[in-house]
């Protein structure tokens, strides 16, 4: 496993977490819980963007990783 594939894996886990949170925010009955889930969901979105940027950087630095 190369570093870039590890980072990519994390990126997709973050995406999974984001969607789970969105489901929870929609399904929760308690407004407080809904708000919290929504906030954390936005936080995950920021992390997702950061990681995406990093993946792109790595691909530019080491073009041989592109396929993995």
């Amino acid at each position, binding site marked *: 496993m190369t*570093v870039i594939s*590890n*980072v990519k*894996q*994390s990126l997709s*886990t*973050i995406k*999974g*977490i984001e969607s*789970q*949170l969105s*489901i*929870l925010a*929609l*399904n*929760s*009955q*308690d407004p*407080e*819980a809904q708000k*919290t*889930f929504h*906030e*954390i969901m936005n*936080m*995950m979105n*920021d*992390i997702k963007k*950061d*990681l995406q*940027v*990093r993946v792109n*950087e790595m691909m530019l630095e080491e073009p041989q990783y592109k396929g993995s």
Partner: protein
Amino acid sequence: MSDWSQIIVRSFIFLFVLFIMTKILGKKQISQISFFEYVSGITIGSIAGEVIMGLDGNIGHGILAIGIFGLVTLSVGFISLKSNSFRDFVEGKGTIFIKDGKIMEDNLKKEKYSTDELTTLLRQKDVFNLADVEFAVLEPTGDISILLKKENRPITPKDLNVKVANDKVPQTVIRDGQIVYDSLASAGKSLKWLTDEIDKLEVTMDNVFYGQVDSYGDLTVDLYDDKMKQPTPQTRPLLMAMLKKCQADMEIFELETESESAKNMYKKNAKKLNDAINTLSPYLSN
């Protein structure tokens, strides 16, 4: 009509009359909180018994007496809703037995309770040590209500300064294998959602005996087939595990990378994920 057929007829008539009467008087009569309800409860019962067994008695007279007792109890209930002093007179007030940790001997004497009876009442409420009690009051029902001293009260999340998620009432969406559409609607879910969730748990609708939706929209089911392992909702603990894994990954990446900006980015995100874990932990623990 022979005696025993008389008794059968009377029994059924009074069963019906008593049932109607209790329905009209409502739950308050059953709980017998006030003195008045206690008295009328006893009397209505004995009038019915008397008329059923005493065959000389007139059925109409019995029903009349029961009706009067019911009517008076009902009107006393109405008046005491309106007037405070009337309520105090009819329903009685609680008598304070222990105040500031001290027994009120005069009040005990007034209610004709001995110290032993007081300790019996306390023990029935799982209080064995008189020193634990801050305040105790004898309710008009004859029950004792106890306020323990703060240090003897059960600890709550508030005492520990722990943030807990607020729970809403779970809705029973499947009862005895039948879908309850009203609760499904109040949980804000559709029939489609329910069938999807049941599919996700890998059981068939026919096998579900009881199903409840909690405030996070998780479905818990009980199956007819008790030998089968009960599926439990796993989404929230799983999400927590994913968050923790990502947090650990960020820390590893931070150590592995040589680029300074990337190090900072990983560090920042590891911290963010840590915050997220802390914020979500009350909501994601079962």
